[in-house]
């Protein structure tokens, strides 16, 4: 599932970077800062996994460190399920190529969304563009944001072993694109 800025804005579309499991974990953990403003440590994450009902094995500090640093990119299904549960994330997000967490979350929480997606099968590009425009207009009528861009996920991983401050500059190109998207209201 590729990230983009919607079907109607292919002029801003560019090939999304490949997101590793470590990058996805770093993104999810940065969204849950502790009291110190930092992402949870491996120890805290491990404790949360081991406190899950029915937990029997996996989720050790060492195993999590390997996943977060990218040394291990092939966790077991039970580890994926545990991480998804602890981080309140759709499990498919951890699979390669399934990077659009906002879309996956909608699908996870809304069975009607699955119906809608199934009915898109067989429609051509023009039909999809038309549908998207109708949805965006309806959103505007309801006072919701006109567009719902995919979350930008940093391709950097984070070992979780250091207390580094998250003060990363966007690249010049990223900043310029964000600046333009923001100012143009796209």
């Amino acid at each position: 599932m590729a990230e983009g800025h919607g079907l109607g804005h292919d002029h801003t579309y560019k090939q999304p970077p490949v997101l590793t499991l470590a990058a996805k974990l770093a993104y999810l953990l940065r969204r849950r800062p502790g009291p110190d403003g930092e992402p949870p440590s491996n120890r805290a994450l491990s404790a949360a996994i081991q406190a899950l009902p029915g937990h029997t094995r996996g989720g050790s500090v060492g195993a999590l460190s390997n996943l977060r640093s990218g040394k291990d990119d092939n966790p077991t299904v039970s580890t994926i399920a545990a991480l998804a549960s602890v981080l309140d994330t759709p499990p498919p997000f951890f699979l390669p190529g399934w990077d659009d967490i906002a879309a996956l979350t909608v699908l996870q929480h809304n069975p009607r969304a699955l119906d809608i997606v199934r009915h898109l099968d067989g429609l051509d590009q023009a039909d999809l563009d038309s549908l998207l425009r109708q949805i965006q207009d309806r959103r505007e009528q309801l006072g919701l944001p006109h567009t719902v861009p995919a979350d930008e996920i940093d391709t950097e991983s984070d070992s979780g072993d250091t207390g580094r401050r998250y003060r990363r500059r966007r690249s010049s190109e990223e900043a310029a694109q964000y600046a333009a998207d923001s100012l143009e209201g796209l």
Partner: protein
Amino acid sequence: MNSTTTSTPLDGLIFGFCTALGVIVTAACIYRVRRKPTVANKCITFAFGICTIGVAFAIPAVANAVEDLTGVSNLPKLAAHICAIAWCASLQLTMVDIAYDPEYLRTAIYQRATIAIAVVLVMIPLWLKANIPGTQFTTEFASQVPIRIYLLVYLGYVFITCCELAFMCTKSATLNWPGRPWSTFGYGASAIAAIFGIGYTASKGSYLIAYTVGSPWSLKLEEKLSPALSGLAIVFLFVGLTLPVGRALFEKARRRSTTP
């Protein structure tokens, strides 16, 4: 950013026009922030709103009315300067949101807000000390040390913001050319605005520094130059940071015309 000169008819004209324009661009920014509620857009909307209020205080007729109503001389001037500080702080946060990842934003808000509050906390005691009947917080009264320091602190903060804005807007304009013309022209106009802002602070600041060292240049020239530069800075920034909304409106109109 407002005039710190003795009131002239030119002040009323410039700042009256800027206030009217401010109301229009703030409305356009409210429309944009509903479509795209990014931190940058929220900060720009707040900045334009507060700037419009600040500029209104710089209109001589409004300033006189506020003074008559409150009985406190120079209160509109202080209010206008505090609005300008809030405006600059909002623009700084806009640039931080563009330049840095969201994780750093909260820290940046605390840092920039602390600096802005510190500037205001330095200005207010100086204003209280120097605010005696018959004085104005203008370059004409540069002989009074508290007024000189007050103006230099204020101008220094605005100068730093304008330098940062000029750098960031120039970079955004050049990197978005030729793919995003709306944004290129918007950021280009904003960079020009920032350069006018630098000119405004340099004009006033250099007069005050020159006065301090004993060889001030023409006060009459400074009083003509500064309001014009600040007015141009405000107009170019209003237009520059609002112009790209035109693309959203243009595309919306095109969609409506093509939808059966």
